[in-house]
């Protein structure tokens, strides 16, 4: 299985990254991508500052990618996560999962995102347009609930 995992400060071109993952492949029937963007919250935000524990982030993402490949028959897998300064509209994270059929691609992409949200060591701090200091973004309870469904999920299906 073709696998790419990358942490970076610079913006990425999601389309070009996905194209390079699947270029020339004629065995991929289904490709699911997820892109997470920085929202401007109706103009209130100047952006985000994302802090990372880089050594652990790489290890965690590799671990989750390995687990995804164990659970579903995947042809290719891509995870790119940014840190540092992000402006509204810019991409933060890209996940792509390719498989012969769509069920595996959808499940793997959602699984990867649920684990990235709750287990990968990144922390977002807002930067505000009104000059006031930003806040650390609070973890969402929905994310903890979302990740629990994978603990009872079967293996390759």
């Amino acid at each position: 299985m073709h696998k790419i995992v990358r942490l970076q400060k610079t913006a990425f071109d999601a389309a070009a990254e996905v194209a390079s993952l699947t270029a020339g492949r004629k065995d991929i029937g289904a490709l699911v991508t997820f892109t997470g963007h920085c929202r401007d919250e109706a103009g209130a935000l100047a952006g985000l500052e994302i802090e990372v524990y880089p050594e652990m982030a790489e290890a965690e993402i590799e671990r989750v990618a390995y687990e995804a490949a164990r659970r579903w028959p995947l042809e290719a897998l891509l995870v790119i996560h940014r840190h540092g300064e992000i402006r509204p509209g810019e991409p933060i994270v890209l996940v792509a999962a390719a498989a012969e059929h769509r069920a595996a691609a959808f499940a793997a992409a959602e699984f990867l995102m649920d684990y990235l949200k709750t287990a990968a060591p990144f922390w977002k701090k807002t930067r505000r347009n009104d000059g006031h200091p930003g806040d650390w973004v609070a973890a969402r309870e929905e994310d903890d609930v979302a990740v629990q469904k994978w603990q009872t999920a079967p293996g390759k299906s």
Partner: protein
Amino acid sequence: MKARYFAWVRERIGLGEEEIAPPASVTTVAELVVWLKRRGENYAAAFADERAVRAALDRRHVKPEQPIASAKEIAFFPPMTGG
């Protein structure tokens, strides 16, 4: 061992990382937190709500009752908000 702090844990302590040498009586992550809180008001503030702080030992998530054993690196941070 090396201690690393992230996000508001880092901000409250005022350090990103430091070398620490807890006594042999400190054997678990929870005991290390108790020991760190005694080092000053900044540490006490960072760990005021212990349930809000997560830990990783040698870059793997661990629970408070985890033995520190011969770990080289411990990290403390709030719940993650990546993705």
